[in-house]
């Protein structure tokens, strides 16, 4: 029995060598396309987080003073917090259904790097939930009387920052994918990790608002994004392996 095991393994690897091999980019594209299609067909899930984003931004003027100068000073913070909360709310969708219907187990058995496939899933998730937030932010910022020169910086900082939020969130989503009712726990796990993105994004917009150069925090946001893209898939893959056990 023991002596046969290496032979069997060899036969397996030969069978794999005969099978059509997908290039890494083709694999990425396949997973990405699948998740994007599923996400767009379940469009209510995606639109819920966008609507939640609008709702949170709408609540602040009602609770605070709707005077133009107050709204203008709080706008960067409010919009960034709303984007963070919208991301947190959407995260439980990231891996849950794939774990329940067995898709993740299939991905685990594939002879391809799991982290790479999870990165494709996370980016598809960001396109469905993050892009609407980025697109809506300047419109909402106009209702907060944000001057035109800060609008571009706000949008650009969200474009750089929200993918990092989704990536960091994907670790938490992977860790809690197998747990029932883990929504609040998931938010609690990843929100502290998102603090740097929140600070950098809101400050970049703040600097633009006061007429200063926002390049510094924007560069840092980009650096954090690159760091997240390179490290998070490893952690998320480890976490999915735990959850799928």
């Amino acid at each position, binding site marked *: 029995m023991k002596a046969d095991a290496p032979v069997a393994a060899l036969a397996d690897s030969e069978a794999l060598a005969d099978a059509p091999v997908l290039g890494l980019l083709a694999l990425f594209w396949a997973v990405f396309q699948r998740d994007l299609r599923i996400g767009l067909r379940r469009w209510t899930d995606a639109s819920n987080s966008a609507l939640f984003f609008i709702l949170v931004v709408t609540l602040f003027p009602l609770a605070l003073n709707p005077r133009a100068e107050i709204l203008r000073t709080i706008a960067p913070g409010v919009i960034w917090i709303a984007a963070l909360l919208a991301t947190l709310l959407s995260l439980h969708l990231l891996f849950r259904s794939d774990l329940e219907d067995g898709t993740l187990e299939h991905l685990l058995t594939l002879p391809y790097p799991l982290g790479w496939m999870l990165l494709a899933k996370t980016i598809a998730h960001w396109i469905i939930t993050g892009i609407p937030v980025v697109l809506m932010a300047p419109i909402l910022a106009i209702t907060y009387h944000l001057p035109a020169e800060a609008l571009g910086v706000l949008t650009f900082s969200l474009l750089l920052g929200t993918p990092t939020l989704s990536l960091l969130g994907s*670790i938490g989503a992977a*860790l*809690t994918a*197998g*747990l029932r009712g*883990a929504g609040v*726990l998931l938010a*609690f*796990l990843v*929100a*502290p*990790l998102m*603090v*740097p993105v929140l*600070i*950098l994004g809101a*400050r970049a917009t*703040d600097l633009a608002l006061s007429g200063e150069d926002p390049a510094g925090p924007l560069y*840092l946001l980009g650096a*954090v994004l690159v760091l997240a893209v390179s*490290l998070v898939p490893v*952690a998320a893959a*480890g*976490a999915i*392996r*735990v*959850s799928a*056990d």
Partner: protein
Amino acid sequence: MWTWFFRLASPPHFYALAGKLSYWLLIPALVLVLIGTWGGLVLAPPDYQQGDAFRIIYVHVPSAYLSMMVYVAMAVSGAIGLIWRIKLAHAVSASCAPIGASFTFAALITGAVWGKPMWGTYWDWDPRLTSELILLFLYFGYMGLRSAFEDVNQADRASAILAIAGVVNVPIIHYSVVWWASLHQGPTLSKLEVPSISGDMLWPLLTNILAFTLFFLGILAMRVRGEVLEREFHSRWAQDVLRGISPASAN
């Protein structure tokens, strides 16, 4: 060559060793903390600016230092558990969390108590206070994740990944918070330590840092002991220990 290591990682052996070890750590810790506190509260002269209020550093600084060291220890032992699949390392990691959270809490409270006479307010969005508070949330998240899993094995691996992700992020959080605070307020308030500390103020502080570290290790040994016993509850040696018929339970 590595046999001592594997023997250390075997639960019954570790259980017996940790029992002895905790006393050998806690007794010196107690002696040193008495010396350090005597030196800090009685022998050290009052600060020329802060008067006697500065003396809280003899509790505050060791707590704050350990709040971060314990997190690193938690992440490192979690990583060891993940990579070499040593269950004992996971037990160490799990035992670190409540101790680290307590030190973080102590650092926050003593900082607030010191802040009232010095800054005129209990809480200020000072970068160190803020990143310490975020650290407390990281500890709570770690413990929350652990308790959400029914299976200890899963809880071990999941929480180890979270601790590693946290430890990568802690410096980024810290520097982003420092940078954020530098935009808001002058650096006058963020000077938590006496700029250049004189020798008769310094030695009690160093003594207390050593004492707190030994205290942490002693408490850790006790907690890991309990954790190991709980995990190995169904094994023969644990049952023997619980019935009081094992040599390991003699001490």
